[in-house]
């Protein structure tokens, strides 16, 4: 058997020329008559090392990175794919401290294999959760998810099991499973990585939900900004159907479940679940009033489980290894693991999966290694564009839902965006309002109009026009948006604005008052 060489194919690796690296390796091996097979795996999420090339032989997998196409001839000169002494050699892949110090449940398989190989997925423990679920009663599946303490990973952190219970308990001849894969928060890429590196896990999780609540139809609503995830999901759905993991008779159980991929059209608001449902129905993505909850009246007015990609994925671990196993990770009411995404101005960016409860500082300093530019860190935005900007004094906060709520912040989908000392927080606050103005669905006035006025007021503050009055006006505007908006878009946009004002007042030309 020839030596296998892994070259990742996820979006970030491709954006760093992984295709050209793979071609260079094939060409160089052929030129030197070396027998090797290039496998395009998913990424392990150590994006700072991408393209991360791995050689697999009897001794295991050895990693090299970050590899550029120009490095390839030198790697071969130095012994690649045999014993290779090179500046890019990182040693055994599993021993990389950045990976070894993580506790991966959901992302345990990411980057290990060709993401589309069902055989690899099976051999790495995949579909064990669904097999267990098929042998359980619907109520027993829902009970396991409840007992696991799993809370929705999209950002709102609603208990997943309670959502499933509501759908199970609502009688209907047609129920739906909808996956929210509209991962629009800047600084997040965990859903994308899961779909690109381990797509069958999402399919398995959705199928478990379908079996649990009695749904036969499912949709994945994927944002159009993820063209690679689209390709991989389309192929994965088709292969899962052929292998009997989706379709009219799942593994001979008599249960049926079909999944269809739908592509969004560039609207951030469609990450809000009711807006997403309207969009799936072919309408403008307007936020709906709640109640009724989607679990009771969701897609086409039918009971619908709508969860984030990572929530469905976590359900596979719960069903494969038991509710107690999952619940034993974490702290307080935040159970299981949190996938943190280190992004922005960070030296070692990528995906870090750990039990809840570690501090923000550990993440950005120990894993992240400080800024990419080498300048001091000044502000960290956690939880996407609606998340607060945290100053250094707040970086010792624990990464769990309640601790973040305690400092008027939110973990959201786990995105952590680091800024160095060149950041202008007045401009960031202005951008928060601008983004809300661009992306508001327009249904409620505080969000639609408030965000436009917010940009104007911040501009006047920066320009020192009637500063005191405008600061009061901005606070009142923020109150109105928080209290009067229909959904989190308008309701949370004031959080980055207020935190910028509170902790970084000097950026708002405050010296002139």
């Amino acid at each position, binding site marked *: 058997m020839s030596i296998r060489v892994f070259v990742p194919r996820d979006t970030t690796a491709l*954006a760093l020329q992984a295709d050209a690296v793979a071609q260079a390796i094939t060409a160089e091996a052929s030129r030197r008559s070396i027998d090797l097979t290039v496998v395009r795996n998913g990424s392990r999420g150590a994006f700072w090392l991408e393209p991360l090339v791995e050689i697999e032989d009897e001794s295991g997998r050895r990693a090299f990175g970050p590899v550029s196409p120009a490095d390839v001839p030198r790697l071969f000169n130095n012994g690649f794919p045999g014993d290779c002494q090179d500046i890019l050699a990182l040693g055994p892949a599993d021993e990389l401290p950045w990976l070894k110090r993580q506790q991966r449940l959901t992302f345990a398989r990411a980057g290990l294999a060709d993401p589309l190989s069902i055989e690899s997925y099976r051999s790495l423990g995949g579909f064990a959760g669904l097999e267990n679920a098929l042998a359980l009663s619907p109520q027993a599946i829902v009970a396991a998810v409840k007992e696991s303490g799993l809370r929705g990973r999209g950002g709102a952190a609603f208990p997943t099991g309670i959502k499933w219970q509501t759908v199970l308990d609502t009688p209907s001849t047609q129920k739906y499973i909808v996956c929210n894969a509209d991962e629009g928060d*800047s600084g997040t890429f965990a859903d994308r990585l899961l779909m690109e590196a381990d797509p069958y896990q999402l399919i398995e999780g959705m199928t478990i939900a379908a079996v649990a609540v009695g749904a036969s139809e499912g949709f994945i609503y994927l944002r159009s*900004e993820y063209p690679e995830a689209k390709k991989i999901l389309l192929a994965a759905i088709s292969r899962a159907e052929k292998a009997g993991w989706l379709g009219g008779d799942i593994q001979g159980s008599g249960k049926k479940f079909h999944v269809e991929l739908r592509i*969004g*059209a560039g609207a951030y608001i469609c990450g809000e679940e009711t807006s997403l449902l309207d969009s*799936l129905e072919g309408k403008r993505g307007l936020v709906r009033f709640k109640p009724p909850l989607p679990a009771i009246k969701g897609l086409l007015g039918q009971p619908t489980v709508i969860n984030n990609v990572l929530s469905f994925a976590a359900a596979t671990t719960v069903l494969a290894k038991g509710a107690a196993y999952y619940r034993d990770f974490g702290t307080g009411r935040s159970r299981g693991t949190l996938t943190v995404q280190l992004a922005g101005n960070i030296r070692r*960016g990528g995906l870090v999966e750990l039990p809840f409860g570690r501090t923000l500082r550990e993440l950005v300093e120990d894993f992240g290694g400080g800024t990419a530019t080498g300048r001091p860190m000044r502000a960290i935005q956690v939880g996407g564009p609606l998340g607060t900007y945290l100053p250094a004094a707040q970086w010792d906060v624990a990464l769990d839902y309640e601790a973040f709520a305690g400092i008027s912040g939110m973990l959201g989908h786990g*995105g952590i965006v680091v800024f160095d000392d060149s950041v202008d927080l007045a401009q960031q606050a202005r*951008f928060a309002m601008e*983004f809300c103005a661009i992306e508001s669905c327009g249904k409620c006035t505080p969000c639609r109009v408030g965000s436009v006025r917010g940009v104007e007021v911040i501009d006047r503050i920066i320009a020192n026009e009637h500063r005191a009055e405008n600061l009061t006006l901005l606070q009142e505007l923020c109150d109105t948006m928080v209290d009067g908006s229909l959904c989190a878009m308008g309701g949370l946009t004031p959080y980055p604005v207020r935190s910028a004002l509170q902790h970084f007042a000097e950026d708002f030309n405050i010296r002139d008052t």
Partner: protein
Amino acid sequence: MQSSAFSLAETIGAVVQEHIGRVGPLMLVLHAVQERLGYVPSAAIPMIASALSLSRAEVHGVMHFYHDFRAEPAGNHIIQLCRAEACQAMGARALEAHVRGKLGITFGETTPDGRFTLDPVYCLGNCACAPTVRIDDDIHARVTPQRFDELLADLQGDGR
């Protein structure tokens, strides 16, 4: 004009035929029309409305709600710059200024020679290796102004 209107009707008819009966066909139809034609011509709106038993206002409303759908043809290459926070933290604002200057256009515009359309985008999911630029279906990481000029030069070479 007669023949192009006829072929547009044929295109819409074929696209609608493919998707009618599915859940929420309008988004599917708009995506499919744009994929075939590069944009959704205004003449298509009444045709889609009538085929799906919707009002023209509904079709117009959906089309203009979503940033992706174009009412006008785009340039030969679509360049999307990420404007979101993770990219801002790595110099996206400076890159944006550079790109505007280099192409001589701003967001939503197409160069006079019809080669490049510049659009904003809010996150391409490459936030650990920012700033990020998408050119057609290719995503590029850590794009400095110099790197952008190289990417542009590569495109200049293709003659489109």
